[in-house]
């Protein structure tokens, strides 16, 4: 922890970064919240532990945060404390031209997993399900890395089992399942707010002339919102699970996003946010692409 604080302090003091987005303790040592610091003396606030749940990459595209990087007519780096899985989001944002690699300073950790929810001790039962299928516990890209890898507590991946069970269902059964889940949606758009990949200046849902997405919170409106979100994220979602964590109605959004991720992985060998050199799946064309799904 001291290493992190000292490093950030130094980076801020010598002007390498204009601001650092990180985590600070929130009321209890088993709970954190995001903090953006600009002064070296504030570095003492920073923490990194298994309670750093937020994906801070979401702040990188916010105008107010970007403004922090504009100092005296030049653009400085923004520092970000990112778990290796959150680094994927940073990379995906770079791939989608939302920021430049040289404008972001990635401080990452060799990650030993995070909890599902604040206030729990990290065990096989309480570990977040995304950590169970994690393929990158060490950051793929970073400017500074801390921490040592330890063994993860073992536990079965129930989420994956659930996705697999969908394959055995009829489309009608799947439809019923999601209809029931989406019925709970109150259209608060917390999923959108928490998602690092939802950076559009104006979301298509908010467009009124013409109105593309039914905005009312009834069955049809809920369906169109959630499905359009799923489509807009397919092969872009990095699987951080923030949407599901943000959802006040406990809709299992990760199930959809993770299924889409599996499809992109199996059919096109593509995982979002893993490689700066690979072109994004949407928007690139390869004559060898499978096309049996084209009618």
């Amino acid at each position: 922890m001291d290493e992190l604080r000292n490093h950030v302090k130094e980076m801020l003091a010598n002007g390498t970064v204009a601001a650092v987005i990180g985590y600070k303790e929130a009321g209890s040592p088993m709970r954190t919240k995001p903090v953006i610091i600009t002064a070296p003396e504030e570095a003492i606030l920073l923490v990194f532990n298994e309670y750093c749940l937020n994906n801070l990459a979401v702040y990188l595209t916010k105008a107010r945060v970007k403004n922090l990087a504009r100092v005296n007519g030049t653009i400085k780096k923004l520092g970000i404390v990112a778990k290796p899985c959150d680094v994927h989001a940073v990379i995906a944002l770079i791939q989608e031209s939302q920021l430049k690699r040289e404008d972001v300073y990635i401080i990452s950790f060799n990650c030993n997993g995070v909890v599902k929810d604040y206030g729990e001790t990290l065990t096989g039962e309480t570990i977040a399900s995304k950590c169970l299928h994690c393929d990158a516990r060490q950051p793929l890209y970073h400017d500074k890395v801390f921490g040592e890898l330890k063994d993860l507590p073992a536990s079965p991946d129930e989420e994956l089992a659930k996705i697999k069970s969908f394959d055995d269902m009829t489309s009608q059964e799947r439809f019923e399942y999601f209809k029931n889940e989406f019925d709970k949606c109150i259209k608060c758009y917390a999923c959108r707010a928490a998602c690092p990949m939802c950076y559009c200046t104006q979301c298509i849902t908010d467009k009124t002339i013409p109105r593309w997405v039914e905005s009312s919170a009834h069955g049809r409106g809920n369906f169109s919102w959630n499905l359009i979100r799923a489509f807009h994220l397919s092969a872009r979602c990095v699987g951080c699970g923030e949407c599901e964590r943000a959802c006040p109605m406990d809709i299992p959004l990760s199930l959809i996003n993770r299924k889409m991720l599996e499809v992109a992985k199996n059919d096109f060998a593509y995982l979002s946010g893993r490689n700066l050199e690979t072109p994004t799946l949407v928007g690139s064309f390869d004559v060898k692409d499978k096309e049996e799904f084209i009618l």
Partner: protein
Amino acid sequence: MKIGVFICHCGENIGRTVDCPRVSKAAEWFPGVVHSVDYKYMCSDPGQNMIKDAIREKGLDAIVVGSCSPHMHEKTFRKAALDAGINPFLCEMANLREHVSWVHDDIEEATQKAIDLTRMAVEKVKRNQPLATIKVPVTKRTLVIGGGIAGIQAALDVANAGYEVVLVEKEPSIGGHMSQLSETFPTLDCSQCILTPRMVEVYQHPKIKLMTYSEVEKVEGFIGNFHVTIRQKARHIDASKCTGCGLCITKCPIRKKAFNSFEEGMAYRPAVYVPFPQAVPNIPVIDETVCTYYKNGKCGVCVKVCGREAIMFDQQDKLVTEEIGAIIMATGYKLYDISKKPDDSFIKGYGEYGYGKYKDVIDGLQFERIASASGPTSGEFKRPSDGKEPKKVVFIQCVGSRDDSKGFSYCSKICCMYTAKHAMLYKHKVHDGEAYVFYMDIRSGGKMYEEFVRRAIEEDGVKYVRGRVSKVYEQNGKYIVKGEDTIAGMPVEIEADMVVLATAMIAQENASTLAQTVGIPYDKYGFFNEAHPKLRPIESTTGGIFLAGACQSPKDIPESVAMASAAAAKTMVLFGSDMLEREPVVARVNELLCGGCFYCRKVCPYSAIEVREIKDRNGVVIKEVAYVNDGLCQGCGTCTATCPSKSVELMGFTNEQIFAQIAAL
């Protein structure tokens, strides 16, 4: 807004199935419509006058014409609108012919559909914006890619019209395949005799900049405004000093290391060479791969003998940028080498008849070189293996052409004719020889073509056997050709001294890569696609890029030349005006809402999307947004479909317009 609706009967075409007066009556009640009529021929003069008069008298703001496809008469009605004083883009069409009368029988239902389509068009036109045609300047210079007969012809035609031409050829000399041919059908003109004057004319033409041993590396820009990067490969000879005396070539000690590709591999060439004696320009190139100097830094005989100090071993490739207005693709073809499977192709590979295994089984171009007076045998018929005169020659047609299982489905078109020519040339020189031709059909469409084939059969006694050859194998120095005579209905076996295969004409090496570089579509075989198979055979779908010759599909010389002249004419049409007018149906980005993900840029097939930086007052970039280059945009709408936040719209087809149309249904 005052809208006028004009329903056309199109004679009987629409009127037979659609109750036009009823459509016009129904349209009167659509909100915004103040005038609605029907007439037998709206596109006729009186019909157009009805429209013009109504616009003037009733003060219409916009019109809807319910008639044929906009492809047919949109221009006509827009012009009428313009003449009457309203913006032509406030004219919409409802297609009551192709979309209704021609595809439906039931009058009641068809009429209802016609009413619906008209209502949709009315709702759309209410949201139409007055648009202005886009004007872009034109650089009046042409790039011709490929220096074969098609490229030469196109370059000369454009240059003679007074416009500058850059002619790029990847080989050290222009001339292409035609320079390799012995004589040409159906007149038996000496190929080089008719070609070389044109080659010289190109070289001497003040308007033509000839760049041989060069390849197009990058094409940016759009119709009238291309920026082309050309790689001039290092010749290792200073072209400004070389006089073409050829001393270096005669003195070069490397004699048997490199095959002469001009002689189709039937002879050797030195490390420093010109492809053939009449090469244009007559400046040699040094082949780095075989030259001793590049192996161990020794030799240098050429340096010693060159009186002009023109040898430049350290010369490097040079990148040259040219500003170009139109591009003519004339990259030609190559022959299908059946001895190996084509790289990276869906073609299975032929691998028959012993080609590549037996020296005396050759292809058409090799035969041309044997028959040519300037060829490796000085025009005497000698077979490659032992130099003896072949007394029995079998010609096999359709090798790899018209073959779905192992070759290409298409007909290579020229083989029937050149095989007849080959057999004839052989018979003219070897009077006691026998020539057999195995054919599937004889396709000799063309002026004097059928007569030519008949002459080969009747006057020169070439024996035509209708059937396929199943096998060619060697036995006691002879080649046993086993086949079938399908007319006699019996197997045939011929002991031949030489076998000539009319192998398929296929797309040039790397044609698809070049197409991607230039930005034009190509078919599954690698031939470049024309914009319309009947009405726009010269244009590619990309504005300002035209096709000439066999790069589009197999062609003979007169067709290639005709196409080249047509392509030249097309560039002149383009250069006829200083500014280019384009329809304003282009994409527009809402810069306020654009999130700058640039998915539009990734999917745009015309590379029309650019990055625009939005800066604050200190000049610091706040954000980057997409920007559409009007000159390049073809209005396909792929970007509008891709944009996740719908921040890009197609003018004339905005989302609002389309939604209104759907809502009206």
